[in-house]
């Protein structure tokens, strides 16, 4: 893990050297299981940072800690200079998040979902209207704003969640497996949107995925996590060079091994299975 990043004024203007997320030696245990074990990394303001790892590596647990939903067992966290465990409300204003499982209300319209979010984040009425419209147009959902969300396709729901997450102009956008379950067209479109976000919104994007090609395509830097430990950090070319491989997929396998991970199913997994059956 690199220490303090050196001052490099010749670097691209969008990505600054100021870390917006600092994670130092965090540990999170659930009973006897250590889901995240002594993980440290920095994310610079304005960059697209990918958290890559096999199933059960600790990606979601890390996101939950950064988004104030879980407290670390030990170690320190910082988002925009604030500690999520002590400055919960302040930190929550500064990030938007799209969880792995949907968190839209299917019985409400796209507009209502956006509007409630605006109220929850204290966006003034007029600004709320303007911003909702701009974001819905940007994510190509404006025509469907009056339709109930339950009639939307998987890709449209994800787009709506991202649009909603950006409504309060957050500094960081967390995307937990944003393309899971989407068809290749929707995935492609999703990443086009995410990349254009940095230009239009200047937002830092922190995403998790286990699709190597996606991390390779969109991320400025990648952190590889396995068994709760950080095994490598760097740009895609750096990781390839470090492992002496020619594709990120090969680098990933070189770093994390080829054994298949058998996680024990949690209550959430069981519910996910039920959800899959019910959706048919």
């Amino acid at each position, binding site marked *: 893990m690199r220490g303090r990043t050196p001052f490099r004024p010749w670097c691209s203007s969008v990505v600054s050297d100021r870390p917006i997320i600092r994670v130092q030696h965090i540990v999170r245990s659930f009973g006897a299981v250590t889901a995240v074990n002594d993980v440290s990394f920095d994310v610079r303001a304005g960059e697209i940072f990918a958290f890559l790892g096999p199933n059960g590596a600790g990606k979601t647990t890390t996101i939950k800690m950064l988004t104030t939903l879980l407290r670390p067992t030990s170690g320190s966290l910082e988002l925009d200079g604030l500690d999520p465990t002590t400055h919960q409300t302040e930190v929550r204003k500064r990030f938007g998040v799209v969880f792995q499982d949907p*968190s839209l209300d*299917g*019985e409400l319209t796209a507009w209502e979902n956006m509007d409630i*979010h605006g109220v*929850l984040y204290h966006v003034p009425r007029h600004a709320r209207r303007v911003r909702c419209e701009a974001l819905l147009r940007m994510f190509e959902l404006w025509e469907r704003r009056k339709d109930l969300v339950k009639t939307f396709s998987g890709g449209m729901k994800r787009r709506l969640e991202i649009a909603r997450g950006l409504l309060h102009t957050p500094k960081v956008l967390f995307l937990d497996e944003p393309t899971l379950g989407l068809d290749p067209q929707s995935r492609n479109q999703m990443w086009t949107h995410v990349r254009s976000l940095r230009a239009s919104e200047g937002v830092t994007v922190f995403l998790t995925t286990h699709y190597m090609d996606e991390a390779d395509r969109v991320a400025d830097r990648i952190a590889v996590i396995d068994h709760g430990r950080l095994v490598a950090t760097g740009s895609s070319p750096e990781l390839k060079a470090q492992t002496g491989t020619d594709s990120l997929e090969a680098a990933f396998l070189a770093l994390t091994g080829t054994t298949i991970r058998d996680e024990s199913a949690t*209550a959430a997994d069981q519910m996910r299975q039920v959800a899959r059956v019910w959706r048919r």
Partner: protein
Amino acid sequence: MSVIFILWLREVKKYVRSRVQIVASLGGPLMYLGVLGFGLAPVFQRAGEGSYLQFMAPGVIGMTVLLTAMFSGIAMLWDRQFGFLKETLVAPVPRLAIMIGRTLGGATVAVLQGTLIFVVTLLAGFRPVSLVAVPLAFLVIALIAVIFSALATAIGSSLKEMQGFQMVMNFLVMPIFFLSGAIYPLEGLPRVLAGLTRIDPLTYGVDGVRGLLTGRTHFGVALDVAVLVGVGVLFVVAGAWRFSKIEA
């Protein structure tokens, strides 16, 4: 305030839009009203207790409110993993505001559903003794709704698995209904049963509604209301506490 309001509004909007669910949830109470109400009427009459429909209509209203309120809380379990709840849990607003908005929303829906079944009982031949008492009876119904919405929030916040839902229905909701004196008079019960009915909050709710609508009460409306308010405060505090402990 605006946060509480928008979350309350969300619950009410969803209720009004889900016509299928409204009709479906009338099924249970209608069955009790139709089958038990008319089936047991002759026996009740012969025992010198008067009209059974008159007696059980408040009980069926209480049952509807109980089931609707409890269901909204259990739905929270699903909502937490696959729904909107997580969105509210990471918002920069106090958990207490979220809990109050949801609970009041759930309670309002339960009262609306109770109103619907009240109209059905009127159609079936139920006659309140005084019209003035009807708004007062609805205040008691609102208390029942708040109590069980808060209890449901407490349970929904504590459970981790959907299977727990079945447990709650069989070991909590059904006993609360059957022990409440909704379908039988509280007078002359065996000692154990009498004791159990007294620790059931719904007993006081049904007794209060029955007292106001039909003039027949076991504990007296004042005591009923006092107990309901006390239990309400207790459950709202418990619900708020459990809700604040959710780790998504």
